[in-house]
C-alpha cells in the first residue's frame, strides 16, 4: 500500500477532507485524561495525547443504547427497530485500542452477528496513530499490541519529527487522501519511523509475561493472590478491591452488557435497552431466587483477572491489550501486571 508524508501544519487539510464526509472524533486534550470527542476544527484535535479515560469501544458498544422500541395496543405488540446510519471517523486512535477493536470484532461476530456493533463498525473509518510516548501505565509491548500498528487501520500516522508519515491500509483510506497532493514517502521517512520504534522499546515502565499465562491462571484458582486482592490488600502495595467496576468500564476489551426494558408512563410503549455491565458488580452472576455464582468479591476479581489473562469464556478475544487504563483508574491501586507477576511467582 502507498505511503505519504504530510507536514504537521498541513494536518488541517487532512481534517478538512475527513469532515466533508464524516463526523470526526479525536482526542480533545493532551495528556493522559483525554476524551474522544467530536472534532470540528484542527485546534480541537490533540494528537499529542497520551491516553483517553474511556476507550473507543464507546462508539461501537455505547455505555447505553436502545435496541428497539415497542408499542402495545389492545394487547398487541408492534416492534420498531432502531439503527443508526451515521458515518464516523476516529482520528488518532492508538495501536492498543485498534487491537482491542479487532478483538471485539471477533466477540461480536461468529455464529451470530451483533447487528448493532457490526453496523457501526462498518460505518467507521479508523485513522490510527502510532505511539511515540507511552503512558506510565502502558505495557502494550508485552501484549504485542503496540506501540506500532501493523493491521486494522484505514490510515496510519506516525510522528517522524516535523512531518507525519501517512500509510494507507485500505481502499477507503486511499480514497480519502486522493487529490490531496501529499508528497510520496521516501526510504528515509521509513528509516526514521524504524528509529522511533526502536527508541520506544526502552521507554516502557511496565511489562507482563504472557507465556503460558492463561494456563497458569486456570490452574491457580485457589492461589492466595485472589484473597489478597479482595480482602487483605497488599498485592504490590494495593488496597483491597472495592468492586467498583471502574476497571471494566475503562477496559477496551470488556464487552459484557445487560439488557432490560423500560416503559413510558402511559404503559403503551417502551424500549429495550442495552447497557454495559460489569462482572465486578454483585448482581452480575445473580440468578433467580437469590442465587449468585460469584457472591464473594474474591470470585469476582478473580473472574475479571482470568478474563483479561485470556482464561475465561471470551478467550484471547477479551484479553488485555496493555493500555494501562485499569491501573490508572483503580482507586485501590490494583495493578494487573503485578497480579500476573505474583501468580507466576516471578
Amino acid at each position, binding site marked *: 500500500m502507498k505511503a505519504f508524508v504530510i507536514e504537521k501544519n498541513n494536518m488541517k487539510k487532512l481534517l478538512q477532507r475527513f469532515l466533508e464526509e464524516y463526523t470526526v472524533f479525536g482526542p480533545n486534550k493532551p495528556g493522559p485524561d483525554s476524551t474522544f470527542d467530536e472534532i470540528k476544527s484542527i485546534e480541537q484535535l490533540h494528537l499529542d495525547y497520551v491516553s483517553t479515560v474511556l476507550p473507543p469501544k464507546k462508539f461501537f458498544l455505547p455505555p447505553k443504547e436502545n435496541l428497539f422500541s*415497542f408499542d402495545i395496543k389492545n394487547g398487541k405488540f408492534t416492534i420498531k427497530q432502531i439503527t443508526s446510519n451515521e458515518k464516523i471517523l476516529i482520528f488518532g486512535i492508538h495501536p492498543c485500542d485498534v487491537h482491542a477493536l479487532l478483538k471485539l470484532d471477533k466477540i*461480536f461476530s461468529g455464529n451470530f452477528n451483533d447487528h448493532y456493533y457490526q453496523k457501526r463498525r462498518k460505518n467507521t473509518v479508523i485513522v490510527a496513530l502510532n505511539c511515540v510516548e507511552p503512558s506510565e501505565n502502558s505495557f502494550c509491548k508485552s501484549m504485542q499490541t503496540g506501540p506500532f500498528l501493523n493491521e486494522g487501520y484505514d490510515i496510519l500516522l506516525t510522528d517522524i519529527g516535523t512531518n507525519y508519515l501517512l500509510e494507507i491500509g485500505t481502499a477507503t483510506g486511499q480514497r480519502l487522501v486522493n487529490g490531496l497532493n501529499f508528497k510520496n514517502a521516501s526510504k528515509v521517512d521509513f528509516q526514521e519511523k524504524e528509529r522511533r520504534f526502536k527508541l520506544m522499546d526502552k521507554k516502557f515502565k511496565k511489562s507482563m509475561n504472557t507465556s503460558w499465562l492463561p494456563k497458569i491462571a486456570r490452574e491457580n484458582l485457589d492461589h492466595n493472590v485472589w484473597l489478597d486482592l479482595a480482602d487483605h490488600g497488599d498485592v504490590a502495595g494495593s488496597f483491597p478491591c472495592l468492586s467498583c467496576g471502574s476497571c471494566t468500564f475503562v477496559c477496551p476489551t470488556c464487552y459484557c452488557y445487560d439488557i432490560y426494558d423500560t416503559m413510558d408512563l402511559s404503559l403503551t410503549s417502551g424500549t429495550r435497552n442495552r447497557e454495559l455491565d460489569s462482572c465486578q458488580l454483585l448482581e*452480575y452472576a445473580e440468578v*433467580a431466587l437469590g442465587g449468585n455464582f460469584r457472591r464473594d468479591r474474591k470470585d469476582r476479581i478473580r473472574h475479571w483477572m482470568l478474563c483479561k489473562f485470556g482464561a475465561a469464556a471470551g478467550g484471547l478475544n477479551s484479553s488485555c491489550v496493555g493500555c494501562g487504563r485499569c491501573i490508572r483508574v483503580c482507586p485501590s491501586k490494583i495493578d494487573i501486571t503485578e497480579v500476573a507477576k505474583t501468580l507466576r511467582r516471578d
Partner: protein
Amino acid sequence: MINEYVPNLAIIKKIIKETHNTNTYFLEFLDKKLQKSFSFIPGQFMMYSVFGAGESAISLSDIDNNNAITTTIRNVGSVTNSILNLKEGESIGIRGPYGAGWPFNEMKGKNVLIVAGGMGIAPLRGVITYIKKQRNDFGHLEIIYGARTPDDMIFKYEFGNWKRIKNTRLDLTADAIPVNSPFECKSGLVTSCFPSIKANHKNSIVLLCGPELMIRYAAKCLETIGFKDNQIYLSLERRMKCGIGKCGHCQIGLKYVCRDGPVFNYTDIKPFIHPL
C-alpha cells in the same frame, strides 16, 4: 443483516397448569412461514420476552404437539411472573432456538438413565417422548425424578404414559411428603434412588438436569457408583441476557452456557462446577 436481538411474536395457543406456580405453554409464531420452518433439538432453549418486563432464557419442554412450541415456566422472578399472568390468545416475543441439545447420536443403541430434579425434567421430557417414538433405537430407559414435594412435580399426567413405555422404569422421590398425600413416591433426594439403578455402567448414557447443587452431588455419586465422566451429560442454567454468546453473563470457566451448552459433557465442565 439479520438482527438476532429482535424477538418474533407468538400467540399462546393453550396453557396447562402444572403446579400452583408453574404452567406449560403451547405457542405458535404469528408468522406462518417461521412456524413451518421451526425445528429444534430437545435440550435447546429459547429467549422469551414480555415487553416491558424483559427477557428470559427457558428450555423447550416437549417435541411435536402439532409443531407447537412447548415450554414450561415456573414463576421465580419478574419476567416469569409476567409470563404467568398471560392468558390464552395473548402474544409473547420469542427468539431461538439456541445452544446445544442432548446428545442423541451418543445415546443411540445405549441404555439411557435420566436424573432430574424439580423443573429439571422440563428439557428432558422431549427426550422421553423421542425415545418412546423411536423405542427400538435405544436400550433400557430409566427415569429418576425428584422434587421438593409431590405437589411440586410437573408433568404428573405423563407419569402413567412413561411407565407404560416398553422396557422403562420410573422412580419418583420427594424431599418431604405431606401426610395423606394421594401420590405414590419415595422420600429422599434423587441420589437415594441410585442404589436401585438398573442400567449397567458400560453401555449407558446419563442425562442430568436440575438445580446446580443437585447436579454437582448427583454427578459425584454417579462417578462413585462406576459411571465414567464422559458418559454423563448435564444441562446447566445461568441468567442470560443475549442467548447468543455475547453478553458474558452465563460464563462458567472457559464456556458460555448459552453458546457451548446448556448441555455439556461432564468431562468438559467438571473443573469449573466443582471448585466454584
